[in-house]
């Protein structure tokens, strides 16, 4: 006979204000098998847990029902308490009478009735609970970081520092990401390259870090502690091990008309190229779309001048496979394309640029060697208009509904730098709101307004009209003055919204992690687990999770590293015992379960069975790998013969719950 204990929590007034907890405890005390039914103010508190533990010992309980908050909140707490009192933790059931009852009802009688039903349901289930034992699974002591921007670099450095091997996979020829393109950083105005490039070098020199540049993740299999990842190393037509990065090939290459991605297409590079002087690895890459040797077989200059013999026109993509215990996603962001925003004349006029293009125009390694000149006629601009929120906080589908977060600050930075360097230049900034929450951020913005006399105007730009004399008419509204303005500008700078990198979506599918509607990765909990994904062993670093500036990105990168290190430190991890298993005698090998399993946990084996007439027969039956199974239950529903069942959530337990609700 079962001996079940019921414990009803008041949760202060959270539950007790809408649910008559005494009546619930009283009613559940009469349920079959219940030997003790108590209520208490805070069941999760130390003394509340003592109550449960003592009851288990004194009453020799075989099952426990806690009527309290969501199992996501305290199921683990009570399971641990039960275990310490000698009861198998999987004999504890939670009836959620807070989120699913007291918080959503106003009427006490209704809420109390529902709480009793929920409690009765849990009692019915716990009658059929069986003790479960968790298995252990080993942890591979190596981490993979996807993306080699500042987020990925910081995460990799921190994990390596803790003594674990890390691989960085970067799709571009060099690590460094967006930060490498940025000129100065807010709010201190220190040079981005000066603080980033030492970190890039540190990453490349760290013996625990392996950088796979110009590479992509092709496939991910496995589960927390034991992922198998296939990495595609794209052919760069240069032998990485031989190239010394001398750059002679890039000088001699006759094809010099290739738009330079690093400078946002504002100048050209050669077909064989090193993205920038401090690139890591400093290895040349051939762009097969422009290389004359690759296209027509006529040239071969780079091969002739390379003393290291590193050029290999016949190089093919290669694949490597590696085991990892943890994966950190750091795929970053991109500014959106502005094709759909031609009211700002971005497609019509070369002097209308994005903020990232302005970074390159102002950078010493940029197309103008650091002097701010208009792209059209290389003249010095005297009036510059900045437009904020281009595509951000947008209520139609051409833009993004969210605030891109970084634009207010970098626009203040640009405005200030221009006023500092070229005091004869008038700078206007059109804004909806100026958002500067961050350490020393608002002081920075105030400085742009008060000290540098940047004209901040609340209002949006409606129309940008380029004129034949090279000037740009900017029509805008000044909402505070309530008037229409026309500014005769030389340059217009658009703060384009940022969006997650396009590679993130297919990657999320490979990793079975979740994304929001904007393709940002979803964290396991928005407040309490911000750097973990909902999939165990996958962590999130930087702007792939949401718009972030550099300080925030680095903080999150280190936090993700800490979480990954916490996992890698363990020799083995406890698996969830609530996994599926197949009754081989009932399984007819139809493959329905295999098709629906999102984790690839089900395989088929040919097994010999003894038949009733004592003959033997080989049959194809499903077999679940308990280490891979996540206990989602899809297979138990799909199975037509009822052979699949989920431990802890068996078909009979769920039917018993349904019966108890309908009683």
């Amino acid at each position, binding site marked *: 006979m079962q001996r079940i204990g019921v414990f009803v929590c008041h949760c202060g007034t959270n539950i007790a204000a809408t649910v008559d907890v005494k009546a619930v405890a009283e009613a559940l005390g009469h349920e079959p098998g219940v030997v003790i039914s108590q209520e208490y103010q805070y069941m999760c508190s130390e003394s509340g847990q003592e109550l449960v533990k003592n009851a288990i010992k004194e009453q020799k309980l075989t099952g426990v029902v806690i009527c309290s908050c969501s199992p996501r909140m305290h199921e683990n707490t009570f399971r641990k308490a039960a275990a310490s009192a000698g009861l198998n933790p999987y004999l504890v059931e939670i009836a959620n009478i807070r989120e699913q009852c007291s918080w959503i009802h106003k009427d006490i009688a209704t809420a109390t009735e529902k709480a009793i039903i929920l409690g009765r349901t849990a009692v019915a289930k716990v009658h059929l609970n069986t003790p479960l034992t968790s298995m252990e699974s080993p942890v591979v002591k190596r981490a993979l970081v996807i993306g080699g921007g500042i987020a990925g670099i910081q995460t990799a450095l921190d994990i390596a520092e803790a003594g674990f091997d890390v691989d960085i996979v970067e799709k571009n020829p060099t690590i460094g990401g967006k930060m490498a393109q940025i000129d100065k950083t807010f709010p201190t105005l220190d040079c981005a390259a000066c603080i980033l490039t030492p970190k890039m070098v540190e990453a490349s020199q760290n013996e625990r870090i392996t950088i796979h540049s110009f590479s992509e993740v092709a496939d991910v299999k496995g589960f927390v502690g034991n992922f198998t990842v296939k990495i595609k190393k794209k052919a760069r037509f240069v032998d990485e091990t031989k190239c010394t990065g001398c750059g002679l090939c890039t000088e001699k290459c006759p094809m010099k008309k290739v738009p330079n991605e690093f400078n946002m297409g504002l100048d050209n590079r050669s077909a064989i190229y090193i993205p920038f002087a401090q690139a890591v690895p400093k290895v040349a890459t051939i762009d097969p779309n422009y290389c004359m040797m690759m296209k027509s077989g006529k040239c071969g200059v780079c091969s002739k001048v390379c003393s290291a013999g590193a050029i290999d026109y016949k190089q093919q993509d290669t694949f490597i496979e590696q085991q990892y215990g943890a994966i950190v996603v750091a795929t970053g962001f991109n500014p959106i394309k502005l*094709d759909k*925003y031609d009211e700002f004349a971005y497609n019509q006029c070369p002097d209308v640029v994005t903020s990232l293009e302005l970074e390159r125009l102002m950078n010493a390694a940029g197309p103008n060697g650091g002097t701010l000149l208009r792209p059209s006629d290389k003249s010095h601009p005297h009036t510059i208009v900045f437009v904020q929120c281009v595509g951000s906080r947008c209520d139609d589908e051409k833009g993004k509904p969210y605030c891109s977060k970084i634009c207010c600050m970098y626009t203040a930075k640009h405005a200030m730098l221009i006023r500092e360097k070229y005091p004869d230049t008038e700078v206007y900034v059109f804004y909806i709101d100026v958002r500067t929450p961050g350490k020393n951020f608002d002081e920075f913005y105030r400085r742009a307004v008060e000290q540098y006399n940047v004209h901040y105007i609340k209002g949006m730009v409606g*129309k*940008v*009209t380029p004129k034949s*004399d090279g000037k740009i008419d900017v029509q805008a509204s000044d909402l505070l003055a309530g008037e229409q303005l026309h500014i005769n500008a030389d340059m217009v700078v658009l703060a384009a919204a940022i969006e997650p990198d396009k590679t993130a979506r297919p990657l999320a599918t490979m990793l079975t992690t979740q994304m929001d509607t904007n393709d940002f990765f979803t964290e396991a909990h928005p407040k309490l687990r911000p750097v973990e994904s909902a999939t165990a062993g996958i962590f999130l670093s930087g702007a792939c999770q949401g718009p972030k500036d550099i300080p925030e990105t680095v903080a999150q990168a280190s936090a993700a590293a800490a979480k990954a290190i916490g996992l890698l430190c363990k020799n083995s991890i406890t698996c969830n015992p609530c996994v599926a298993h197949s009754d081989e005698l009932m399984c007819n090998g139809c493959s329905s379960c295999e098709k629906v399993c999102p984790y690839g946990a089900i395989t088929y084996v040919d097994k010999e069975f003894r038949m009733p007439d004592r003959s033997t027969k080989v049959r194809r039956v499903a077999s679940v790998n308990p280490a891979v199974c996540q206990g989602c239950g899809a297979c138990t529903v799909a199975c037509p013969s009822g052979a699949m069942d989920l431990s802890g959530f068996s078909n009979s337990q769920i039917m018993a719950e349904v019966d108890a609700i309908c009683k």
Partner: protein
Amino acid sequence: MIAVSADADGSEKICRGNTAVSRQKGFAMETFTYYPGCTLRTKAKELDTYARASAQALGIALEEPADWQCCGGAYTTAKDEIATKLSAVRVLNSAKEAGQPLITVCSACHNVIKQTEYDITRDEEMASKVNNYLGLAEPYTGGTKVYHYLEMLRDVVGFDKLKEKVVNPFTGRKIAAYYGCLLLRPAKALAMDDPENPTIIEDFIRAIGGTPVIYAQRNECCGGYITMEDKAQAQKRSGSVMSSAEDMGAEMVITACPLCLYNLKKNSGSDLPVYYFTELLAEALGLKEASNE
């Protein structure tokens, strides 16, 4: 959503919504219900005459329903006014009964009729009110494919085919397209082109051999009806359009809208000639003289 696929025989099929039109090399005659609108009977006769003559030459038969009325002009977009939508629904229903797509040419009429078609398929309350009032044999709940004349040139005839038919090309002429606001907006309902970066009239200009002039003000408002109340405002609006076109080197401006043409001519203070696009079309096809007889 436009899907263009080339068949093996070189003819192309264009599917827009539910209407599939076969575009043959031999220009098979196709019949459309044609809605001219009031202005095209009075102030904007050229827009109408040249549109009809050119359609004929391009293998498009235009059938004018006997009972069409004023589209309702600018008043139809008032949310609470059902009566002003009735006329648009009547002509949409006529086209449906004839089993033909509907063609409009005036920007304002097109805007009204296309928006009404968009609304009636989405707004049940409006649809039932309109139908209660009209008491048609069969309630009209949408389904008529509405083309602007320019869309017909692009999607049914094809600009490449139009180019082959041109006898008097506008070679070397710098022509500025003026879209105004009604032709493209609201983009969801009109679904003709990108409202901020349109190309349809520029493509038309190329098809008749001219050189399109891109200028930023081409999709700004001309001032519209405000000329009745505040002439200065209309002068400012149309003035900035014309000076922007002139500044970018345009020799002439073309439009599809009688009201735009009025403002650009009378209120802008510019001498730059303004024509209806159909006039240039007829001239390019060598039909101008004949259609004026």
